[in-house]
């Protein structure tokens, strides 16, 4: 079992008002699954992804990642999990604007102390994998939206994480570019990667093997495809 969520709750407190974003999520994910999370806006998809990605902590419940209990980890341990186990792809790319594509992809390896030469080689390989061999030295503002998202994907997979998380990775792209990005994910899945992505589009969700639908912070439906 790669991921095991038990009774995960997340409650935001805005002043005295309590906003429950997740209300008891139970979820198991096996290695090499390809999961799409769907649901109406505000149903808690991003909140769930952030918790799985160790960017956020649940208000209550247990989260086991590779048999390690993430809920009890301190900041440094969480940073190491984010670095080694998780590759995050954001809707808004979140690249460093002043750094080249290559340096952006090198970033996760900087934080685990990979020596410069190895770092560069692995970053180049990752960029080749997403078809950007000829754009390595471009800055994000010199790249199209689709190319930026490919850089972000290269960055997410460069440390060979256990799981790749993508929160609406095609949300800021036109449908043709979105399809190209989905092809990359499909390739990654075929190579054995575990992928969870959030989407609003049925045709994107159809790329996956399993669709989880959320409503009001709870799992409404969890079904396998094909």
């Amino acid at each position, binding site marked *: 079992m790669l991921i095991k969520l038990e009774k995960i709750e997340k409650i935001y407190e805005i002043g005295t008002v309590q906003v429950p974003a997740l209300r008891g999520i139970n979820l198991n994910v096996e290695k090499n699954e390809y999961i799409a999370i769907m649901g109406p806006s505000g149903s808690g998809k991003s909140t769930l992804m952030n918790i799985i990605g160790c960017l*956020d902590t649940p208000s209550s419940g247990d989260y086991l990642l590779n048999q390690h209990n993430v809920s009890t980890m301190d*900041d440094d341990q969480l*940073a190491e999990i984010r670095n080694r186990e998780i590759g995050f792809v954001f809707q808004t790319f979140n690249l460093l604007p002043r750094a080249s594509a290559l340096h952006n992809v090198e970033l996760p390896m900087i934080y685990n102390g990979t020596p410069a030469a190895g770092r560069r080689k692995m970053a180049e390989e990752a960029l080749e994998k997403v078809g950007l061999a000829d754009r390595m030295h471009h800055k994000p503002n010199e790249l199209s939206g689709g190319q930026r998202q490919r850089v972000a994907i290269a960055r997410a997979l460069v440390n060979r994480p256990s799981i790749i998380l993508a929160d609406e990775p095609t949300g800021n792209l036109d449908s043709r570019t979105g399809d190209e990005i989905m092809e990359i994910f499909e390739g990654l899945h075929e190579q054995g990667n575990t992928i969870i992505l959030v989407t609003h589009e049925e045709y994107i969700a159809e790329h996956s093997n399993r669709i989880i639908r959320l409503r009001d912070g709870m799992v409404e439906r969890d079904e396998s495809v094909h």
Partner: protein
Amino acid sequence: MRILIYMWEGIRIAYDALRAYKMRSILTTLGIVIGVTTVITIVALIQGLNQAFSSEISALGTDTVYIQKFPWTMQGDDWFKYRNRPNITVDEADRVKELSRTVSAVAPTVETSRTIKHREKTVERVSITGTTAEYLTTANADPEIGRFFSANDVASNRPVAVLGSEVAELLFGQSDPLGKRVTIGGRKFRVIGVLGKKGSFMGFNQDILAIIPIGTFQSAFGAQRRWVTIEVKAKSPQLIEETEDELTGIMRRIRKLTPEKESNFAINKQSLLLDTYNQLTGTLWAVAIGVGAISLIVGGIGIMNILLVSVTERTREIGVRKALGARNSDILWQFLVESMMICSIGVLIGILMAVGIAKLVAATTPLPAAITWWVAFLGLVFVVTIGLFFGIYPASKAARLNPIEALRYE
């Protein structure tokens, strides 16, 4: 290894950030620049003064005292208090020599300034000292070539002169000055010795001088209204206090001062100058530390301010880095390195300016100014302490940011 990688990334980030905000960064460093410039310039000045003075003051000798009308350390209207004192006389010098037991040499000296000529060559404004044979001991005036005048020369008022090296060179060039005739203030003298070169001090050339027997001096240039200094050399530097006490007693006896009367002469010595000098440099140090500290604090606050702005502006960047696995300490160091880099720019500009000022001062004024290797060390200390001290608050603020909130920041 890891720490090197983080440091390098920190430097890279800081460099990018500083390049993106050039003007802002340079303005930020202004306080540091002013502080570093002030401190280093003043310290360089003190060092230069030390180099010049220590040789000059030690040339006075720790075992020599000077009986004079005025003390060396006077302030304000002291001069009016002392000017009615009787002048020191050559006779008094003779009595001192007769009566004292703790001294090895006593020499009265008088001074004036005259033109020296040899054939068509002249040297103007030469310092002329009239003294006795024991001046050789009290002033260490051992000639490099020739000899100093003897007690006999002095007793018989012989017209002989010992010249400073520069005077000899200007008058005689390469030829041998010994035995040659010179005219000092219209009187003829025979050169019997030339002193070694001493160089210049505070813009004052110490080699333009001539020494002649005191009797000869008085008959040539007049005996009245001249300030006589009695130079006294103690038997050893350890005995200087005793010598001072003995001389006070002797002078009071000579002048028949009753116990209730104040002494109407001064006994000066090197340590008096040293004390005054130390007071002066102490004041300079205080100014350096004061101005330096204030501008460095102002500069440091400027850096802190700019870093706080920078942390806010780059909240998303911090979020991204944390999402990719940067630990709190990585972010902390990133901003500390940036802080130290801003500081080092300021320190560098400050050092360059101080070097420039020191060069300018040395070139245009007699004040010496010396900047040496310690500048680099001082600079390093500034960078590390100010950078760390004022960077730590903004940096820890950045380090503590929650990753998801930082990523959501608009």
